């Protein structure tokens, strides 16, 4: 490589790296009163352990909180104080039993204040259904806990969808039905049941400009039944429109879980297909996933429950690993990286400089991927993945440098030593990276939750590490080697002088 070309490349690469570094780590600031600059690190999604999230408590009908009970008592006392209305209101103390932190209505208890078997069975069933729904949603980390025996506490990380919609949708009780009755009527006309006989499963599909769609995959019987009901609906709509001379002939099909509307779709013709895509209401993948999870859970009869769950209060909670755990981790990793880069420069000089550039490229590309790829969530496991892939990248660069050094010590020229050193480390570098990529891919595709998210980050880290070790650092080394006059000293090598006898 010529000197001029090398200078141009060094300037170009430095500018790009500095630019990316600025975009990645600069703290957020306001560009103008309305516009805020957010660094790439600030838009990374975190799990509940590093970023906190939302929690809610599901209260089954017949179970109320202390504050709700206090309000009933207050209302009762106010009403009782007014002589005209004193007989109109019941004393809550006569209708509720205190049980730990909650109050149980007499409708779910016997005379001694013990819950009825029916309520207990329904509550257990609701709890299991919620567990299935949250598990199916596959958060980086979440928790479902029983609180005070008869309420359910759910904690999830921050998501792009509305937390209230998420918690409310997961609380839907009852069977899945397809109906032509709109939401204004309580009693729904069931055209088709949404059960395992008719529906295989529901998933999420990309709907282009419409955002995302919920894909309902029918069984053979389900496809036939759905084709039949949609044909009937379209026919009825067209006969209505011809009788009323209206121009519109589209029908609407509604999907309910119990009495709650899950989604609706307009039909202009009969749909005879294995998969039906319903889009229009889902701007984020997460919101479509939530509906798909509810549908999937109702396909198993064991997950259908019939008590209503109330989720009126949703709270935000701090990261479980400490209020500023993510910031502390980022600073700690930054300090370590700086120490490692300084060590590398001191130990390997010119080769160390190539490693600094190579490592920065690796780190910045990884930050770009983590912050911009939808669906990557960094939790404590993710931190491990980042640390391991960074350590592997550094180790392989140093391993190559050590091989170059040993080749040079064997009497080869610098250029030949670099070639031979890289050649020597090539097979092992490729083998190890292939193994790690394959293993992390297996973990990603089979496991769930924490490990799945961790594997995805490690998979990306390994691929970037392979590229940076095998090609980019080597390229940087050649780029820098074009500059110094004494290339041997630049690489911190010493040629031992041999005395001529």
């Amino acid at each position, binding site marked *: 490589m010529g000197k001029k070309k090398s200078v141009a490349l060094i300037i170009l690469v430095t500018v790009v790296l500095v630019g990316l570094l600025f975009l990645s780590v600069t703290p957020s600031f306001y560009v103008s009163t309305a516009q805020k600059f957010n660094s790439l690190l600030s838009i990374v999604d975190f*799990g509940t352990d590093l970023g906190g999230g939302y*929690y809610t408590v599901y209260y089954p009908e017949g179970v109320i*909180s*202390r*504050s709700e009970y206090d309000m009933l008592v207050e209302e009762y006392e106010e009403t009782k104080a007014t002589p005209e209305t004193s007989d109109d209101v019941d004393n809550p103390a006569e209708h509720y039993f205190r049980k*730990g*932190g909650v109050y149980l209505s007499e409708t779910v208890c016997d005379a001694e204040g013990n819950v009825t078997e029916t309520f207990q069975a329904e509550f257990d069933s609701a709890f299991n259904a919620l567990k299935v729904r949250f*598990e199916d949603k596959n958060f980086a*980390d979440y*928790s479902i*806990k*029983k*609180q*005070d*025996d008869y309420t359910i506490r759910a904690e999830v990380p921050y998501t792009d969808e509305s937390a209230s919609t998420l918690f409310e949708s997961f609380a839907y009780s009852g069977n899945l039905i397809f109906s032509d009755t709109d939401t204004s009527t309580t009693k729904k006309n069931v055209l088709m049941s949404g059960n395992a006989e008719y529906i295989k499963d529901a998933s999420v599909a990309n709907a282009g400009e419409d955002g995302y769609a919920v894909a309902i995959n029918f069984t053979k019987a389900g496809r036939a039944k759905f084709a039949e009901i949609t044909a009937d609906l379209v026919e009825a709509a067209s006969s209505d429109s011809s009788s009323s001379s209206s121009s519109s002939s589209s029908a609407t099909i509604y999907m309910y879980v119990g009495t709650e509307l899950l989604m609706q779709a307009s039909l202009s013709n009969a749909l005879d297909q294995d998969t039906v895509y319903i889009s229009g209401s889902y701007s984020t993948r997460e919101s479509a996933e939530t509906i798909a999870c509810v549908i999937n859970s109702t396909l198993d009869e064991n997950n259908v429950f019939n008590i209503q769950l109330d989720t009126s*209060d*949703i*709270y935000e*909670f*701090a*990261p*479980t*690993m*400490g209020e*500023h*755990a993510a910031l*502390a*981790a980022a600073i700690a990793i930054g*300090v*370590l990286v700086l120490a*490692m880069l300084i060590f590398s420069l001191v130990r390997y000089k010119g080769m160390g400089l190539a490693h600094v550039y190579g490592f920065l490229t690796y780190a910045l590309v990884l930050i770009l991927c983590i912050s911009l790829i939808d669906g990557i969530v960094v*939790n*404590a*496991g993710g*931190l*491990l993945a980042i*640390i*391991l892939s960074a*350590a592997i990248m*550094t*180790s392989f660069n*140093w391993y190559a440098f*050590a091989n170059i050094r040993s080749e040079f010590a064997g009497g080869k020229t610098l250029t030949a030593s670099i070639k031979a050193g890289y050649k020597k480390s090539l*097979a*092992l570098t490729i083998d*190890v990276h292939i*193994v*790690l990529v*394959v*293993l*992390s891919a297996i*973990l990603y*595709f*089979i*496991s*769930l*939750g*924490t*490990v799945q998210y*961790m594997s995805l980050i490690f998979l990306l880290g390994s691929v970037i590490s392979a590229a940076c070790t095998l090609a980019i650092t080597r390229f940087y080394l050649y780029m820098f080697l074009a500059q110094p006059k004494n290339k041997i000293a630049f690489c911190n090598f010493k040629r031992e002088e041999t005395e001529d006898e």
Partner: protein
Amino acid sequence: MSKTVSKKSLFVCLIISLVLIIAGAFVFGFLGFNGNATMDDYTSIEVSDSGYMAFDDNFRASLQDFCSAEIEKGGYDVAAVKYNQSASGAGSSISFRLSDSGEGLDEFVDALSIAIDSGVENAELAVVSVTYHNVQNEAYYDFIWRTAVAAAVAAVVLFIYAAIRFKVGMGFTALIAAVHDVVITLAVVALLRVPVGVAFIGVAAYSLLISAFMNLMVFGKMRRDFRSDERKNLPAREGIALAVADSRKTVFVTAILLAAAFVVLGVAGAVVGIELLWFMLTGLMAVIASTYSSLCFAPAIYACIKEKSDAKRAEKAKYNYASDKQKSKEAKGVPAQEVVSETK
């Protein structure tokens, strides 16, 4: 030199590993893992309001201090205090997590509610409500099983890849070492009662990955050595010992980099929240287990395998004079019986 991979060293490694695994299994069997704050059942006293705390920090601080003092006076130990803000901004709560399940909390929260009204300024404005909750954790079996299956498949793939690209013996050793490292990490964490949460399953998977990496680094060096003219004819144990000694530096460099990261993050964790410290400690254990395994345990196992395979190969390659003579006699028509007696 070959002491590190001798039969005695393998025996010592096996004893260490077995003792740790059995002890860890016993502790796990009787007590399970030591769940951290996110995994334990707990009782908490919750003081909530209609959102006043969110916009008046002084009120929140005085309410928190007052409640902490009252709870302590009531004879309860507070393990942690957490402030939660309503997502809609319409309410907020302070949760005082108790160290043990408190007795007589019905009366205590009633008394605390009255005390707040009289003891904290503006409490009536904030509409403060006091209650307590018993929270029971639920295990995540599906999540654990899926990860276990994934780890098993990954270990088998590691074996297949190492068997093809390196040697069958190395693949077999890498498989044993991977299983060993994961189990040892789990056992030591159970044994030392390090508090762990759901994320700990990530450490187990991480342990598998780091084990694969470190063992392949050592096997890579062995593979190169066994092809070189200088070392290919060395006795199995000596060759392996030399390769281990040569790759020690690379393995230690990686281990030190990882350990330094865990120590620094652990220290940061001790400042911001103890859970991060415990988590990093488990990560550090995985690094130690994998380093020990790649430099001591796995080479010692592979030395036995290689020694046997070398002996077999040598046996096969040995020139068989007896059969050669027998063949030539047979060709000349001499009975085989005589040849046998001759070779005696």
